[in-house]
């Protein structure tokens, strides 16, 4: 039986490869009814890269959207051009869909086989909408019934960042630390695996990706003293293939003989234990709560780990490895190949989890395989993704907590005046949500720019003794955030990763907490927390179009080609998340330390938006 299915899979794989070869040779030829298998995308990328010596950022695009980041390189770039900088001004609302929920809607909708799949915040409904019919009526709805108590261990609103499609199934995570596989046609649950324990403060909010038949999932709970991990599950059965912890002995972190980090500071035995005091690594955070990228050529996955716990750094002497770090691992075994810690002994809740966009760039006259990582610490790292060498790390927002990154040692040179602890520190920038938080950037191979939705926040803080009680917050800092220089709290900017310089930027009143998408039509889309969905020219940032949605936007816009051949833009509206907790959670603005200090910066948000989850889809008339 195994043999038959194996052979069938090989046959399917070979067929797809052949089709792809034809596709790559005969440009313009359109494959119908593709996308049943994500292997197509992998093999297409593989073959195209051989055929044309193409760069990883030039991913094939079938007009679908099968994972939150669009592709393994995480470019969030659509090759569609029907909507372009000339005509985007005519964009009209096509249809809407209410999720029936009022917490923060951060997910990217998926589009597969003429069906849109929408994951909601807790209670993590999954809706399937039929794109072939007018108004996209519901095909089915799946309810995983997560444990309601899990809402008490979600640090930053009960959000979910989306699903992944692979081989006929939709994969996503529920807040109570489960991963589920749902039949994409019928909405029936195929498997449901429990990965952790809310009584230890664990939860999951991230969008998984599927690599080589494995569903990759990381836990959340860096504010609850959890032990961070990334786990691979068999996509067919849901059985755990491996788990790589971020702290602890090398055997738990899956560090073996092939681990070859670039910098001296990352070498040594059991650093996940030795860079901590006592047993603190067991409750030290380092969760993998956001994005994973994959390079099929190097056969490596890339992801970052969260802040260490507790926030109060005086309670955890040492470098606290491998928190606030990047890992490159082999997808089959989870074995670590290299690691780089952006923020050793983190002082400001600078998680290392932000997206890694895989690019092949010409840097200093040399073609390099890099990853672009805009870190919470306000610096945009360009790192050689084959070995973990930092090529540049320039600030993309106002930064005064660090001076620079020493490219010889990889060390972040800190400003001692902004070192937090029990004492009071004021005007440290960026604030804990960082230069940017989870909100993912996009890259256009046409312009060569990275499009970054981000924050402009500074803060004041005072540490207090954090007391570890499993399943409750483990933070130990009182925080009050406020707008950074210029008094605008958010920015949307275009960044040139080769020159390591900003190209243009747009000031926004609130943090730009939405994702973004950019197209071959030279249009970039993003949303604002006061509810505007905006299109700007990808070349110069000139505003081209905007639409006021019902609630603040913190979702990830996606672009797809509908069954009628029309290019569509879809985005979820529904304010919330850490930044929008004041509205979604009905918090009281008199206490600026609310929502870990974000309330102080967002006291006026309620005057601009109300809560309510709604999907909006736009197209040209």
């Amino acid at each position, binding site marked *: 039986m195994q043999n038959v299915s194996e052979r069938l899979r090989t046959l399917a794989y070979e067929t797809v490869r052949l089709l792809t070869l034809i596709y790559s040779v005969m440009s313009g030829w359109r494959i119908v009814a593709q996308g049943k298998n994500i292997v197509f995308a992998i093999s297409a990328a593989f073959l195209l890269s051989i055929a044309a010596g193409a760069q990883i950022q030039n991913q094939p695009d079938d007009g679908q959207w099968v994972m939150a980041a669009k592709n393994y390189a995480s470019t969030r770039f659509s090759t569609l051009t029907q909507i372009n900088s000339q005509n985007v001004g005519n964009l009209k609302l096509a249809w809407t869909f209410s999720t029936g929920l009022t917490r923060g809607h951060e997910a990217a909708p998926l589009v597969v086989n003429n069906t849109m799949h929408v994951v909601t915040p807790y209670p993590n409904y999954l809706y399937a909408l039929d794109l072939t019919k007018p108004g996209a009526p519901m095909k089915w709805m799946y309810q995983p019934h997560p444990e309601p108590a899990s809402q008490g261990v979600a640090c930053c609103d009960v959000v979910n960042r989306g699903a992944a499609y692979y081989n006929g199934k939709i994969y996503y995570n529920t807040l109570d630390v489960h991963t589920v596989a749902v039949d994409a046609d019928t909405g029936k649950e195929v498997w449901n695996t429990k990965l952790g324990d809310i009584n230890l403060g664990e939860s999951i909010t991230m969008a998984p990706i599927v690599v080589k038949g494995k569903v990759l999932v990381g836990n959340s709970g860096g504010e609850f003293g959890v032990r961070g991990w990334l786990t691979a599950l068999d996509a067919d059965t849901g059985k755990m293939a491996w788990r790589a912890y971020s702290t602890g002995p090398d055997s738990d972190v899956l560090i073996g003989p092939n681990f070859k980090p670039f910098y001296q500071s990352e070498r040594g035995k059991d650093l996940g234990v030795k860079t901590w005091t006592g047993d603190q690594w067991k409750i030290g955070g380092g969760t993998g709560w956001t994005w994973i990228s994959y390079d099929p050529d190097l056969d490596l996955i890339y992801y970052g780990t969260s802040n260490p716990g507790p926030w109060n750094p005086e309670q955890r002497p040492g470098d606290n490895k491998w928190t606030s770090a990047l890992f490159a691992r082999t997808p089959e075994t989870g074995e670590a190949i290299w690691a780089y810690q952006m923020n050793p002994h983190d002082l400001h809740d600078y998680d290392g989890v932000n997206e890694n966009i895989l690019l092949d760039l010409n840097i200093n006259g040399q073609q390099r395989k890099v990853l672009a990582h805009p870190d919470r610490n306000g610096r945009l790292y360009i790192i050689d993704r084959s070995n973990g060498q930092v090529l540049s790390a320039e600030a993309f927002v106002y930064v005064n907590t660090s001076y620079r990154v020493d490219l010889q040692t990889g060390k972040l040179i800190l400003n001692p005046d902004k070192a937090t602890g029990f004492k009071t520190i004021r005007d440290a920038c960026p604030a804990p949500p960082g230069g940017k938080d989870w909100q993912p950037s996009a890259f256009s191979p046409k312009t060569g720019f990275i499009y970054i939705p981000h924050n402009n926040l500074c803060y004041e803080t*005072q540490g207090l003794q954090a007391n570890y009680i499993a399943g409750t917050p483990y933070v130990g800092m009182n925080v009050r955030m406020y707008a950074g220089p210029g008094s605008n709290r958010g920015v949307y900017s275009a960044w040139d990763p080769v020159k390591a310089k900003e190209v243009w930027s747009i000031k926004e009143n609130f943090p730009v907490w939405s994702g973004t998408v950019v197209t071959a039509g030279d249009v970039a889309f993003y949303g604002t927390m006061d509810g505007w969905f905006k299109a700007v020219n990808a070349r110069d940032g000139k505003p081209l179009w905007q639409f006021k949605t019902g609630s603040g936007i913190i979702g990830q816009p996606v672009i797809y080609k509908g069954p009628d051949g029309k290019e569509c833009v879809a985005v979820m509206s529904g304010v919330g998340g850490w930044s929008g907790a004041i509205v979604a959670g009905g918090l009281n603005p008199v206490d600026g330390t609310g929502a870990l200090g974000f309330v102080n910066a967002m006291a006026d948000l309620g005057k601009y938006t109300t809560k309510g989850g709604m999907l909006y889809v736009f197209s040209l008339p």
Partner: protein
Amino acid sequence: MKFGIVKIAICCFVFILGGCQREHRDIQPSPTRLAIYGDAARESPLRPGGPVQPQAVVANPYNGSAYDISEGQRLFNWYNCSGCHANGGGGIGPPLIKKEWIYGGEPANLFDTIVKGRPNGMPSWGGRIPEYQIWQIVAFIRSLNGEQPKSATASRQDTLQPNPQNLMSERGGGGATK
């Protein structure tokens, strides 16, 4: 004869046992028990057919005690209540500086909520926090809403944030200044 003695002994024992129960007097039910099982922790004012009797009120034994309110504030941090409710403004959990309570804002309700937990994320602390400390925390929470005498309430909190009572005036929130 032998059996007779045993029977008498057993009868005596049972009688004595019964006597234990009979002589037990619950002169004043403890506030705790009333809060959990009793009339005082009702969460709905809607009473079909109208109230049968006036609702019992359980007074917090630490009402008006500056020391206990101060202890309540310390414990509020120590048990990580502040991790979710911040310094009263809320975060993961709802704010505690407010007028509308999901599960009632009377001392008995607050005690009940802490002991039993609530289904949407509030942990159940019964058995983890001693009862007297729960009452101290309740006293502190009530102080956040000005429901303790001013003379017993700290003029400022132990945190970066001044006492919310002061902020509840015209000043409004911290806002996006600077």
